[in-house]
């Protein structure tokens, strides 16, 4: 009897295993790509999407007037050309001809105007609204859209890139058919097919796409809520593309069997300091922190070497020189001098707000920084909370210091005006502003000349570092893992999946 039972159990197990070997589903057809993502998308409205996964996913369906391409250069998108007037107060965009929405209607200037108006409408709650506030009026004529600006604003062009600036059909907007449970209707390379919450988003190629129909005809973003499982799924061949953020997982990718794409991200890590409260209301204490930190050590330990030291501005054209700061290398002696100058020779203690699940290496970074600061008699106590708790505290500047992962943009204006200008809507969080910063931001915004902008942003970077307003640490990498059969794909620093439109399998 015992042996019978065991036999039964063993037999069932064997049958299952045998069955799997026999009936493994046929390998995906060569024009189908399945992408593994830890996060599911959270909505279908491009203008209010802030979640990385949503932005990535909707970026395949919607297009914007301009695009950021490889090398972080601005490229034409739905706008085929543009020009500023001499004063820089008027931007004329010529729209691409022959672009159709997925529902068949034509894209023209009325759609562009309606889309921008929707972003500006406070009722929408659009994430990119602040970047368009200098627009006083818009004129739509056939294929051209003219934006009249209140002040010269050159960076507005770069601000027009991205899913938050998606071009929608004016009919959809008028009928209120955007977001909610409405099927996305865009001009992008892929048509939205379905969204099964917590499971997948499915797409099919858009045959009428203005760059030519994508070679990969079917796309699926499949939710696999664990990066280790994503890697396993790739090794087993059940998915062909994976979005990985954890350097520990990226290190395990076998380049013999898979392709690993790695590009420096525009996002950056910083220890934000609250300059309005003790002990960081004293500049000397802030400088002491800056000098106690060995950034390469943090990168090597917490990020396994997968990162680069950075300054405030990560926009490639105006990138900050990481050595242009009071302590480009760790200098404990100097740190102690600063502490003495602040009257704190016996040491300083403060609490740092850290998110436990905001990004993969947050807690590791915090631990290493804590150990480093201890060498200069600075005690950083860790206050670790989950992301949803972290957010309201971050927004309310309810912290003495916080380890943050902030997004970067290709233009320093869109990247930092919201933080460091006195009228910026996140200035409360940045806790610092000055007349000189305001002046320099205005200078950078108004001029079209690279030399002028460079001097403005160099000055801004210098002021931020010399005052140790925040302690800028490093930039990570964006990782994409793909099957060796994927050709023609290039990874972008913005994380966008748009290059899939020109890619092919096999």
């Amino acid at each position, binding site marked *: 009897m*015992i042996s019978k039972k065991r036999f039964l*159990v063993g037999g069932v197990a064997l049958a299952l295993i045998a069955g*799997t070997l026999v009936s493994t589903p046929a390998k995906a057809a060569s024009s189908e790509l399945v992408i593994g993502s830890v996060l599911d998308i959270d*909505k279908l409205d491009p203008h209010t999407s802030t979640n990385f996964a949503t932005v990535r996913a909707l970026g395949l369906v919607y297009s914007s007037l301009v695009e950021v391409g490889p090398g972080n250069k601005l490229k034409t998108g739905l706008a085929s050309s543009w020009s500023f007037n001499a004063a820089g107060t008027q931007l004329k965009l010529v729209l691409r001809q022959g672009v159709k929405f997925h529902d068949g209607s034509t894209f023209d200037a009325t759609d562009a105007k309606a889309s921008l108006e929707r972003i500006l409408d406070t*009722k929408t709650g659009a994430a990119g609204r602040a970047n368009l506030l200098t627009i006083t009026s818009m004129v739509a004529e056939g294929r051209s859209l003219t934006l009249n600006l209140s002040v010269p604003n050159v960076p507005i062009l770069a601000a027009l890139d991205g899913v938050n600036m998606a071009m929608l059909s004016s009919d959809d907007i008028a009928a209120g058919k955007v977001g909610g449970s409405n099927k996305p209707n865009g001009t992008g390379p892929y048509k939205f097919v379905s969204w099964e919450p917590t499971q997948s988003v499915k797409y099919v190629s858009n045959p009428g796409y203005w760059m030519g129909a994508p070679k990969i005809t079917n796309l699926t973003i499949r939710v696999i809520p664990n990066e280790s499982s994503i890697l396993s799924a790739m090794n*087993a061949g059940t998915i062909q593309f994976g979005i990985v953020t954890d350097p520990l997982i990226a290190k395990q990718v076998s380049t013999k069997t898979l392709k690993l794409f790695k590009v420096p991200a525009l996002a950056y890590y910083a220890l934000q300091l609250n300059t309005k409260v003790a002990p960081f209301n004293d500049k000397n204490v802030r400088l002491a922190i800056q000098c106690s930190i060995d950034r390469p050590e943090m990168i090597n330990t917490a990020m396994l070497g997968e990162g680069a030291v950075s300054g405030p501005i990560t926009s490639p054209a105006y990138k900050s020189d990481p050595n242009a700061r009071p302590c480009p290398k760790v200098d404990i002696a100097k740190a102690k001098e600063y502490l003495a100058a602040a009257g704190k020779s016996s040491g300083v203690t403060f609490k740092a707000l850290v998110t436990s699940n905001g990004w993969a290496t947050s807690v590791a970074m915090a631990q290493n920084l804590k150990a480093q600061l201890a060498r200069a008699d600075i005690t950083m106590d860790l206050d670790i909370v989950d992301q*949803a708790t972290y*957010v*309201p505290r971050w927004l309310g500047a309810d912290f003495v210091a916080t380890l943050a992962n902030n997004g970067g943009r290709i233009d320093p204006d869109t990247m930092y005006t919201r933080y460091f200008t006195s009228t910026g*809507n996140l200035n409360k969080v940045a806790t610092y502003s000055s007349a000189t910063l305001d002046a320099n931001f205005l200078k950078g915004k108004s001029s079209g000349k690279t030399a002028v902008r460079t001097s403005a942003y160099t000055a801004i970077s210098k002021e931020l570092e010399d005052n140790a307003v925040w302690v800028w640490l490093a930039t990570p990498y964006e990782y994409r893992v793909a099957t060796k059969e994927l050709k023609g794909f290039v990874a972008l620093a913005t994380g966008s999946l748009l290059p899939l439109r020109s890619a092919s399998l096999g």
Partner: protein
Amino acid sequence: MRLAKTSGIAARLLSVLITLFGISVFIFIVLRVIPGDTITGSLGIETGVLTPEQIDDLKRYYGIDKPLLLQYFSWITSFLSGDLGFAYSTGVSVLTLTGSSLPVTIELALFGTISGVIMGIAIGMFSAKKPGSARDFFGQLFGLLALAIPGFVLSTAIVTIMANKFGYFPNGYEYMTPWEDLWMNLQQMLFPSIVLGIAVAAPVMRTTRSALLETVDKDFIRTAFGKGLKSRTVQFRHVLRNSLIPIVTMTGIQFGYLLGGAVIVEKIFALPGMGRQILDAINKREYATVQSSVMIFAILFVTINLVTDIIYRRIDPRIK
């Protein structure tokens, strides 16, 4: 309490309702106590770009502008009338969401319980055959070792080894319900069920082993000089049938536990169950989804408990 049977059941039902009421209040309060709300949960740090008027608008939209007591009553009355609320981000009703995720979790818990019972009985029988021997010791030890490994370690190890060495990872494919593709569904449930089943297997193994040993002792002595040696295996079968009753009633409780404990397994094996639904909704502070999902869970759990209790009382006449 020597109440008549019918009023006994009525009393039980009343206590069930009170329990459920308690849970609804508890979950409501707990959610409001946690920092963050639906707005920050959905927009993250970009909430900072909203104007105060926009925030008021959103509060109205999410229904979190009303006083707490009103929010509670509007939720609980909708719930009782079948409207479980709305998951604002997805534009899908909680009822629909739960309708697809609950079966997954129930199937997982069911298979977990079954696999646990099978494993437990198998090891228990293996050990009981020669009590006190090395075989017995190692049988028990094996059961314990499996229990001692944290669930997520075991799960990840299984996934990694199966995928990397054998190229086998059914959970890397789209999840299939049993009616869509039974074979794929069973494969996707196989390893997660085994991992969950281990926690069930341990007590089952112990109960099986001791029950077998007890009966074997008695029967053995009784029949030793009597009819001649009866086949041990016949005794085992008889004993097993009797031991199954307490095992089954115990697994009723375990089943309920598994419903709540499956979230880690659901994450690693990418199963779209209730555990993940609740966890994701908590992270996004989607109050309606969390509240209603937890209530559904609680109703299920309490019902299972009630049924198990009734069966237990029927079998064990000592308890009144």
